[in-house]
């Protein structure tokens, strides 16, 4: 299993142009296959997730993915780390489904014909085979998230970071996307408000007020979070 490390006296992130800290110094070594991150809105969960593939840069400390420093070799890290966003509409940038998956494959497959072939195979695997030439704007919310996930998995990353991937979905699509994520062979770092999903993880971090306040088994972490919310 890959290793995500937050090192060197703790990784912290300061808000741009201001003294506010959005993530306090944090030291972690994530080696479990399914790691959950839960916490209130604005607590720093997404910042923590975004550090892993360089979408957010650490103000102090180092983030390493399998020993590769995200700040020094972001390109190499992003080849290993796929990222699924909350809103798939922002993630889908090409007109049709097959073209969007092909865009992901551009860095990995130079031949246009093989790229197309691979993209079609990925869509087939995710139940979107019939939608290859359909406009991404014509898809339902669930299908859009499915396509976004397909675009990430197409390049076979070692780690998938998913930032609240089910927040905008209905129950059926939430279950579908969640099952797909938990069936992946890849290491999964899942930021979520869905405590049922969090309970399926091997390890869960509870992030509150810009810091990791609890780190442990899923059930204990969820109970800690519920107790914290009840105590407010």
């Amino acid at each position, binding site marked *: 299993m890959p290793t995500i490390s937050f090192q060197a006296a703790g990784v912290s992130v300061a808000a741009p142009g201001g003294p506010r800290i959005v993530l306090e110094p944090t030291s972690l070594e994530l080696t479990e296959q399914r790691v959950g991150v839960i916490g209130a809105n604005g607590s720093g969960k997404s910042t923590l997730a975004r550090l892993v*593939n360089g979408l957010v840069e650490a103000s102090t400390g180092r983030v390493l993915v399998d020993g590769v420093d995200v700040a020094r070799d972001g390109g190499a890290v992003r*080849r290993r780390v796929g990222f699924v966003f909350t809103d798939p509409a922002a993630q889908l*940038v090409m007109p*049709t489904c097959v073209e969007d998956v092909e*865009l992901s494959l551009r860095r990995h497959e130079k031949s*246009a014909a093989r790229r197309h072939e691979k993209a079609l195979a990925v869509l087939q695997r995710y139940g979107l085979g019939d939608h290859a030439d359909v406009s991404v704007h014509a898809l339902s919310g669930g299908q859009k998230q499915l396509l976004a996930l397909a*675009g*990430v998995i197409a390049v076979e990353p070692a780690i998938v970071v998913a930032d609240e991937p089910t927040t905008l979905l209905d129950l059926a699509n939430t279950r579908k996307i969640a099952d797909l994520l938990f069936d992946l062979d890849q290491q999964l770092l899942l930021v979520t408000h869905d405590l049922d999903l969090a309970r399926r993880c091997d390890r869960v971090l509870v992030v509150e007020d810009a810091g990791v306040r609890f780190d442990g088994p899923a059930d204990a972490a969820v109970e800690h979070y519920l107790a914290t919310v009840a105590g407010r």
Partner: protein
Amino acid sequence: MSNTGMVGVYQPGDSLLHRAPVGLKLGCLMVFSLSIVLVRSMPASWVFLGVALALGLVGRIHLLTLARAARTVLFFAAFVGALQWLWYGRDKAIETFVDLVALSLAAVVLSATTPVNAMLDAFIRWITPLRRFGVDPERVALAFGLAIQALPGTVALAVETRDAARARGVRHPRAFLTPFVIRVVARAHETGDALHARGIGDD
């Protein structure tokens, strides 16, 4: 959202136009556009419109797609036509109106028979010689592709913002424009993050 469908989106097929090389199609569109601009006569305008419609038939483009494209451009063409009528008279106005419709239909035929990735690949090939001057062909081509793709999304944002303003009973243009610009900028940031996360631009 129906409005998002008004920008030509590729329709798979095996027509003559689908199989034609991208460069040839773009070249023909360029010649067609120049001809429309340079040849100023009413009969020629109707011929151009006939050619555009014939191309749609050859490419087996859905009538609905052509109709949507025409509907979108009708408002603009009618506005320009009205100004022409005011300044130059009825014949000139009709000629301009028909020219604009023909031009937009031809553009829709191109985008409906050519996948964006195929256009990107062709564009990258053409501008690769500029690499020696520091131009990154992949990035330039992607920027063009994104610009094309951004149009339907931006229209959707505009419609959502307008509806939100109406739902709050606000009709002032500022109540639409300010949130619309903010949302477009936010969407651009999100798209940038998404591209960054996918490693686009890392090489």
